[in-house]
């Protein structure tokens, strides 16, 4: 799979190149700033890209902005954002085009190589990989998740692991149940969230989107 990497810290950039190459990816370009990233994404149209949220020249959220702009030009272009911190605002912006192939992880997660590589693959395949911290922040909120009210506690747990990008098999292993049992849960979730049967992968994305966007966007109106 062809990857574009954007990371301004040379040590970490080289580490990412080495890590992904060792796991069967082909790094087509590794850049260290926002404008070059956007050009590289549009030129190569990689299978997936791994992007640091904060990049030169502004050292603000150039990485995220370049990724959003690239997805506007190339719909569904898979991007995995790495960040030193998680911000619901950014997760929401990434998911706002309602297509899959997005990930948003804390930078620390690269330390867990296997799970990180899984997340990159998940995103490349059009799934989502949201950081457990994003997911847990959402879980601690009460009273705003009306669309999810119908779910049982176990179904919620399954949904949160789906949001993190886990496959049914991985979820089954986590709960020490059969793959089939998880499949039943996911079908119940799709039914309760009113997601008619279609491409299963896309339904997973839609379910996660519903989960992450359970809060209605705040209306921008005068009080």
């Amino acid at each position, binding site marked *: 799979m062809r990857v574009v990497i954007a990371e301004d810290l040379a040590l970490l950039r080289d580490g990412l190149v080495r890590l992904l190459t060792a796991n069967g990816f082909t790094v087509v370009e590794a850049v260290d700033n926002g404008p070059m990233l956007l050009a590289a994404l549009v030129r190569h149209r990689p299978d997936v890209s791994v992007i640091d949220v*904060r990049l030169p020249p502004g050292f603000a959220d150039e990485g995220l902005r370049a990724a959003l702009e690239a997805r506007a030009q190339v719909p569904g272009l898979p991007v995995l954002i790495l960040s030193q*911190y998680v*911000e*619901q*605002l950014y997760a929401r912006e990434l998911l706002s085009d309602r297509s899959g192939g997005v990930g948003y992880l804390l930078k620390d997660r690269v330390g867990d190589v296997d799970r990180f590589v899984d997340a990159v693959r998940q995103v490349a395949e059009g799934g989502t990989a949201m950081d457990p911290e994003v997911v847990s922040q959402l879980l601690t909120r009460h009273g705003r998740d009306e669309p999810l009210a119908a779910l049982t506690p176990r179904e919620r747990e399954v949904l949160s692991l789906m949001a993190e990008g886990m496959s049914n098999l991985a979820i089954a292993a986590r709960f020490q149940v059969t793959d089939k049992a998880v499949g039943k849960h996911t079908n119940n979730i799709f039914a309760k969230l009113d997601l008619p049967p279609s491409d299963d992968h896309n339904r997973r994305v839609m379910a996660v989107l519903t989960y992450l966007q359970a809060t209605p966007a*705040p209306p921008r*109106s005068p009080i």
Partner: protein
Amino acid sequence: MGIRPATGGPTRKAATGLAAYALNGVTGLALNAVTGLAALVLLVLVLASVALVPVAGLGLAPLARVLVLVRRLAGFQRRWAGQVLGLDSDPGHSYETGSRRRAGLASALRHPGTWRELGWLALHGVTGPAPVVAVWAMLSALHYVWFRLNPMETSRLNTFALSLSIVAIAVVVLIAVPLFRGGQARLARRLLDAGPAPDARIRELTASRAAVVDARAAELRRIERDLHDGAQAKLIAIRMHLGLARGSRDPDEIVRMIDEARDVAGQALTDLRDLVRGIHPPVLADRGLDGAIEASALLCPMPVDLDLHLPGRPQPPVESAVYFAAAEALANVAKHSGASRAWVRLRHTAGVLRLTVGDDGHGTVRRDGGTGVRGIEDRLSAFDGSLTISSPPGGPTELTMEVPCALS
């Protein structure tokens, strides 16, 4: 049978009012004539002392004494002007009098208030007695008309001239004299005032600066402690584990040590992340005040209506103070209000940044209620900002924070 009013109704009231007005004017006239004369005398003394200074510094000692008298006279006039204009009495300026007269003189001459007083002295010396001179001139004219022009003959012309003179004097006394009194008061106020209560303002600034310095020092201590006991200690543990792994010959032991080192590194990262967030939230740096407030609203357990309009960015310290104040207010709403909705409104108008955080909870937020509100106030006071609380029992609660600042 109603009770009759004691006074003779509006006409009589107006008459007594007019009389009091005229009386005030006349006393003001007399007073200003006296202080004006005193000012003239002092002016002459000041000039004489200054003229004597080149003669072996002979004028220095008298000058210092005269300046003290000038200050007293100015102080008297300042209080009088305050009474006339119905304003708070201005404490005036103060400068070190010093144990030695020479030091006191130097301090007085350096103070701009002294120069304003001297300017007032010269003006008042001229304008204070002037109306008395004018009235005297008019009375002389009347005297001239009455006795000199045609003393024995009461002709029509004579009566007319006399009446005219009396009317003129009455007009002057009733209208011009009180106007003069107000004018003198305003003149004194304008020349002698050093602005609105400078000492109180300085005390306020000193106090808020001290609070800022204290808060900064406490913040630095906290950061030092967090780094020292948190990330730094964990990095040492990581090194230790890696050292153990390197020295070990047991492959299982090596893997275990490396795994532990990795776990501790993860904890160190979490510590550092929390620390950074406490110093300056990354989302604030990335997205500015409106974006950062939007991000904190997303973490609120209840829906938050946002109405954020900011055409630019305030200075980073102001931005940070207002952001933390907003975050604190939203955290209070989440923790204590029992609200089902909250709202945040952000505007910048006429050089003032105004942030309102409201909720439909049960209310009764008080200034002395907890450290949260005090924390907000302290943060804002460093930038001359203010906090207004509207929180009746039963709600709704609205906190309004205002900070004067410019946008870039």
